[in-house]
Structure formats: C-alpha cells, structure tokens
C-alpha cells in the first residue's frame, strides 16, 4: 500500500501525518502537492489538518478547487482510500465527497483539548483493526468542527452505519458534556457509502506515541496499513449507499 499526504498552502499537520507513518510505523509515505494533479499511484490519500489557503471564505472552500482535488475526487469515486483529518474533513465536505457542513464551534472559540471518541462501526479500512465500541483518546484542535446536516441526512448516516466515530465520555455515553464543539449527535467522524472515504475532526496522528499523551491513534494507522491487502477492493458493503446530498 502506498500512502500520500497532500500539502496545501497552509496545511500544518501534513508533516505530522507523514511522521506517523515514516517515523512511528516505519512505513513508506510521500507528500503530494496541491498544484499537481498526479497522485503518484498511491493507494491512500491523506488530506491533513491545518488552514489550507488560510481557510479564507470557509474552511476547505478554496482547497477543493486545487488540481490535486480533481484527482482525489475521481480517485475516491473509483474506490480509492481518502482520509480527511480536521481541515481535511472540511475539504471533503466542501468537495462533496461527504455530506453535511461544518459550523463554528458552539463556543465560538478555537478548541484544543483531549477528547474520547467511540468506534461505532469498523466497516471501513480506517477502522478495520479496531473493536466496535472501542474508545480512543486523542486531541482535537479546531475552530470549525461543529458538524451539521439535516435531520434526514443524519438519520440516513446513522441507519447506514456511516457515523463511525462519536464523541463520548469515559463510560461511552455520547452526552452533551462529551461534545467539544456542538456537533450534531456528537459526530466526530463519518464515512461515505462505500466506506473508502473517512472524514474526522480529531487528530489520530497526534496520538501515536505514549510521550504525546496517548497512542490510541495507532489503531487507525495499523488498520490502514493492514488494509493494504484489500486496498483496491475495499471491504464489501454491509453499508447501504446513500445518495449524495447538496451542501447545506
């Protein structure tokens, strides 16, 4: 499996994602450039955190028009693995690869803190190695992570098992106290209908070593690397496809 991390102007977690593969897993990884439409035959594209194009207009609104994103959209539609973390999740929403939108955090402030997220489904290569119900502890760091979608979209996401990560308390309850940003139904991460595109606000790449406070994020990296064997034939759907929605 070949992994590529996209650098947009203003990406600032691109190196962190790179380092998780390269320095922690000792796994090959390369950078992809926003202005280059060539994905260099990677099997998985990571859209990292940061402030692509300064987040001007709206987070991800300009990045989605990058040459690399045209290729990423086509790649995703043919089953290629795409993992958007934080700003990368925002880009995926703007690009229409995932439904819904991000609003400002309910506090109207940037929030950097440790959160717990529960793995609600493992039906995606990014979470294959996790246990359903497993709780992962990792940081968030964003000002716009308040996930929003219409109630019927949310219902469809839930019904089809596409809400894969949810903010929870230590005992696993997804109550308002566990919700750091006002996100609808405590949603922290969702996948597309085929399960090959994941968007999540928390930063698993910041939780890959004990010295950083947690290595829970490793479970996701191991899942992905382990999924290499099925890279092109993503695990077949137990999830039913949902028609893509217009942006909210």
């Amino acid at each position, binding site marked *: 499996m070949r992994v590529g991390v996209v650098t947009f102007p203003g990406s600032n977690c691109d190196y962190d994602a790179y380092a998780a593969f390269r320095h922690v897993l000792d796994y090959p990884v390369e950078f992809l450039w926003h202005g280059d439409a060539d994905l260099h035959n990677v099997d998985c594209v990571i859209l990292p955190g940061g402030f692509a194009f*300064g*987040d001007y207009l709206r987070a991800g609104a300009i990045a989605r028009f990058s040459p690399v994103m045209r290729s990423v959209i086509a790649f995703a539609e043919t089953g290629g693995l795409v993992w958007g973390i934080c700003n990368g999740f925002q880009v995926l929403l703007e690009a229409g690869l995932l439904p819904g939108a991000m609003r400002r955090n309910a506090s*109207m402030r*940037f929030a950097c803190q440790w959160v717990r997220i529960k793995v609600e489904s493992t039906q995606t290569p990014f979470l294959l190695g996790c246990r359903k119900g497993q709780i992962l502890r990792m940081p968030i*760091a964003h000002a716009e992570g308040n996930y929003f979608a219409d109630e019927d979209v949310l219902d469809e996401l839930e019904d089809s098992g596409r809400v894969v990560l949810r903010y929870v308390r230590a005992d696993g309850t997804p109550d308002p106290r566990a919700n750091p940003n006002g996100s609808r139904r405590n949603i922290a991460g969702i996948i597309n209908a085929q399960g090959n595109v994941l968007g999540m606000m928390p930063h698993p790449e910041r939780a890959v070593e004990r010295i*950083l406070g947690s290595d829970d994020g490793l479970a996701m990296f191991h899942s992905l690397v382990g999924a290499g064997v099925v890279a092109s034939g993503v695990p077949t759907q137990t999830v039913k496809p949902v028609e893509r929605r217009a942006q909210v």
Partner: protein
Amino acid sequence: MSDPTITPALIADHGLSVEEFDKIKSILGREPTYAELGVFSVMWSEHCSYKNSIVLLKTLPREGSCMLAKAGEENAGVVDWGNGLAVVFKIESHNHPSAVEPYQGAATGVGGILRDIFTMGARPIAVLDSLRFGDPNNPRVRYLVDGVVRGVGDYGNCFGVPNIGGETIFEEAYTGNPLVNAMAIGIVRTDKIAKAAASLTGAPVMIIGSKTGRDGIHGATFASEELSEKSEGRRPQVQIGDPFTEKLLLEATLEMIDADLLVGIQDMGAAGITCSCSETAFRGGKGIHIDTARVPVRELGMTPYEILLSESQERMLAIVRPGCQGDVERICQKWQLEAAPIGVVTDSGRFTVDHDGKRQVDIPADSLALGGRVPQYKRAERRPEYLDQLAAFDPLTLPVPNDCGEALKRLLASPNLADKTWVYRQYDQSVRTGTAVGPGMDAGVVRIRKTNTALAAVIDGNGRYCYLNPRRGAQVAVAEAARNLVCVGARPLAVTNCLNFGNPHKPEMYYQFAECVRGMGDACRAFGTPVTGGNVSFYNEDPSRAVFPTPTIGMIGKIEDLALITTADFKEAGDGVALVGATKNELGGSEYLKVIHNAVAGSVPALEFEAELRVQRFVANAIRSGWIRSAHDCSDGGLAVTLFESCLGPDDRLWGLDADLSSGNGNLRPDALLFGEIQSRIVISFELDARERLQAAAASDGVPFWFLGRVASHDRFRLHPYIDESIGGLRAAHLNAFPALMDEVKAATAA
C-alpha cells in the same frame, strides 16, 4: 504632494529631542529630508535603538559555553543543543498595540517573534505567552483578555506552532496598559543558521512576502511613548496580521536558506524596510541602496516616507547570492509570495534610498543601527519612596483566618491562581507532535525529533514582587524559572527577557528598571544561565499610573533523556509526599495577602542563591536517579496551593491527600505555612520505599526535607490540622472561576 516642512513641532511629533535633532544634522552635515526624519525617528526610538537601556543591558552575563551567537548579534539568541543542532529563542512585547487593538496587537506580536526565529533558518517548535491585565471584573479588561487570547491563538494555530506554556496574571496596575509578551523557540541545524548581514557588495536586495501598505507606520515610535487618551487614534498604527501568509513565508524562507541562495536575511518588524536595510548593512559592514518605487505596494500614491516606515507584516528582506535571484523567485512563486528586487548591497556604508530618480535618504548605516552610533543614555535614578512604606508593612500583624480551608478555596478561585484552561484551550498545544508537557504545568516540554532529548521552556514574571523590591523581585523571577525547569527534569541553559517598565525619563521608573536588570544579572550569574537577548518595552503607563515593573524571564533547559521528563501531578495512591527546602514565616507580596487581606505590601520572600541551588540540584539528582514521581515548584499561592495542584492528574483525574503539617513546621503561623510564598521549595512525591534514600541524600546535601504525608485515592484534601476539604469541591472552585468570569464577556457581547 510635497513633503511637510520640518518644524520643531514636527520633530517633537517624531519623538526626537532637540539635542537628537542637532546630532542628526551633525551626522548628515545638513538638514534631514522628511523621509530621513522618519528614518531617524523610528531607528532612534527606544523600540529599535535601546537607547535608554543598552548601557545597563550590557552588564548582564552574556557569555556561556552553550552560546553560538552573542546577545544582540543576531535576531534571536542561539544556543548549542548538541547533535549538530542549535536552539534559537527570543521574547518580544506587543503591549501598546494590544492596549488599543487587542486582537491584532497580540496576533502580530506572535507573528513578529516567529519571524525573528525563522529568519535565522530555524523552524519554530513552540511558543509561550505571558499576559498581564487589570482586574478582570472590569468589562474593558475582559474585552482585552478576550481579544488578546484570540489573537495569540489564531495566529499560532494557523501558523502551526504549539503553545506549550505561559501565564495570565491580573493586577490593577495593568488596567490601562496590558502586557502581551510572546516567546518563540525554533530549532536549526548549526550549518544552516542564517545571518542577518548584508556582507557581499553587489548582492541583490529583495523584498519577499506581503505587499507594503500603510499599516503600522510609526508603530515603533508609538511603542516608545506613554499611552494616553490620544492612543485610540493610534489604531491605524497597529499592524494587521495574516498567519497564512506567515506560514508560506516560513516555508519559502527555510527552503531558500536550505538551498543556500542567500547571503543574509532579516525579517521586517518594527520600522520595516528601514530597520532591516540599515541593520543588515551595518552588520555586514556595507551599505544598501534601494529604490522605494520598486517595492510592491497595496495602494497607489504611497510616499517614500510611508514605504520606508510601513510595518506591514509578513515581509522579509533577503540579501541574495548573485546569480540566485531566479531561484529565489521560483521558490516564492511556489509558495505564492511576492518577491521583488528593490536594491543592491554597496560599499558605501550608507543606507541610500531613491524614489523616481530622486534621492530621498542618504544616511550612514552605523548611525541608525544598534551597536553603531545611535544615542545611548543612562538616565537619572531615584529610589521611590513607596518602597520603604510598603516594605515596613508587617503581614504577621494580620489576623490568622479562622477557616483555612475556606481561605484556600478563595485563593483557588482568584483570577491569578484559578485554572486557566479557558485560555490555553484556545491555543493549539499539540500540532507538530512534539509536545510532551503542555500548558498549565511548571514548564512546557517538546521533544526534539531524531534525538532522545527534549527541550523545556518557561516564561515567568512577578510584577508584584518587582514592585515591592525590584532587585529581589527580578532575582526571584529568574530563580523560579530555573526551578520550574528543574521540576520537569531539565537543566537550565539560557535566558531571554522582556523588560516591561514605565517611562525611563522618570527617575523612579528608571530606578525600578536599573534594579531589576541588576537583580536579573545577579541571578543569571548564580545559575550560570546567560542572557541571550530580549526586548525592552518602556513607557508602559496610562495617565493614571505605570505598570508594575515587570521583567519577564524566558528560560530554556535541556532534558538529556526522554525518560527523565517529570510532571507536577501525583502518580499513585500511597506514594509519599515531601517538601524540599526550608519554610519560613514569610507572607509579604503573596497572593494570599492580596486575595484574603487586600494588601499588596510587605517584604518580598528572601532568596539565597546557594540554598536555591542546593534544592534544585537535589531534585535534579533525585529525578536522574529515578527516585521521585512528581516535582512541583512551590511558589505562587504557597504550599497549600502547590499540594492541591499536584492532586490534579491528566484526564480529569483527582488524587486525595493525607498530609500532616502539625509537626516539623517550626511553629510557623498557619497562614505563612499554608500560603506563604517562601522561595527555594519543591513538592515531590515518591514510592514510599524511596523515602529513606531521599532523606539521607537531603541530609548529606544540606537540604531541608519535610515528609508531609501520602497521596490518597479518596476525595479528601487533608492538611492536618488546618484543612480538610473535598478535593472535588476545591477543584470545582478552581476550575469554574475563570470561565465564569469570562463568560460574562459572551453575555455582554451578545447583549
């Protein structure tokens, strides 16, 4: 548009004295042009020239085996790290801009200090911030807090550097004039350190980054006068920050340095093009000639005067290797930045400026640059009378509180001691995946990738102590910073400082300044931590008063082995808890006096360097030997607050404590014992079977060691016989106080 005539009033408006204007005429051998008047005005402002401080700053210890560049030689201090790496670090103030426009003032303060770091080729790996405001019950103060915290956060968050520590302090003295000090730290390979010198004749001079606009003109001069009713009108002099452009500028700068395309490079901060050209020319022993008409500008019709003095952010002056201009342009294009050739390095030794074929400026570079012929003054000192009055106050005449538990709760909920998560939650603490210890601890720690070492850093000031006793206050600030570093397992290496004072023309103010510099020098010599550079901010006064004299100490230290990283929190129930260092009957200047007795008075806690060093060495050895599990500096709020803080584990974990203070306390007053801010003390915890070893080592090192009790898994915080409170209740008071205060801002904004 023709230039204004130079009149005495215009000269005074430029912050220049009659004598200074005469000196300018004698340097030039003629009357200055309007543009030249502007150039001298900013370069001879305190902010750029250090004219009222440099004489004293030179008395600070500035040499040390770890240093790779002398203080003041480069844009920031450079310390040898080993492994072929160097650490670059510095503090800077942005007080006046933040007083007028808190968000942009604070944001550009962070932006400015980051540029100081990466202009040397170093990649920023951490920032810290030291913030001081007035009483937070004042809505204007809360507006400032809100704006400053957002500004610090938004800039660093977007740029992508973790905030690993800081302090947020409230004292009435800072009501009209808050202090916003930001510290940045970067890391660079020693063979890639860039110089800020234009040392090659004929080398093209380019401006890189943002276009030049009319923002921030005379910002340096604004920073060098007292705040007044007129200051609101200075709003246009506050620069506007764009952290996105700064991030691009970082990447482009490092790429150009890495490719060895540059002779030298300097960021543009205060006094923009003027300062960067004249300083690089002076350092290189050369001249620089530029044409302001070639500078990319944001608006039509900008005059040479405006272009020279603009403090538009996110710009760099690059002295390019001949033949490499195309490569520089290519890299800038890649990062979507402007790059324009504006001039050339000359042999003239002069800073010359043309505009549309007309000579605007022709000044010897050495008459503009620090270290050259800028004026230097030693001002008159007079010991303020209030010092003796306040020192005469004897806190031991005050009644002892009936309920020490209640007093503790009030202290924990007071603005200075309350939990500040509200602040640093707004800062990205973990980007770059290096943060091992984040904000809210004794010191922040970032590991240095590809080595087994980590860097610890702290920013620390104590305005109240310095107000009561400037010299000792400054000594204590340095001692505390060093102690904080020792507590996380680091060896203190070097210091940067930000000196925030009132108007140096007032002898009482200058006395405070001079005494603080002397105190800092005493302590830095004692701890072997050279002062690598820093920043002076005078004129921190509003019409009603001056700020407390506040030297802010930024100190870095090295942790030789990642396994030695130690934190303040208790680790296991049953572990022993002890206080290392002597406890005395001291209450002067304490948080307790202020909060419980409403007094800012008394004698500042004594500090004896030898005793301090013994305590620090003992704890450092204990950490190295693996004997202790936590270490926490015992200072602000005293022993009770320190013990409480050690009960706070990560992830909202709370420990109980069973401590017995009834014996071994030397018959101290309970409030001095619990809340006195006696120096040179550290609270440690350890596995019980290490107790004997620790006690024996303490005895042989001559360090007082007081076994207090044991960590518990129950909910009580017991300091027998004075305090027995629910730890959950104390924590709730500590945790909720500050957000409750600040949430009123939200309510007020919404209304």
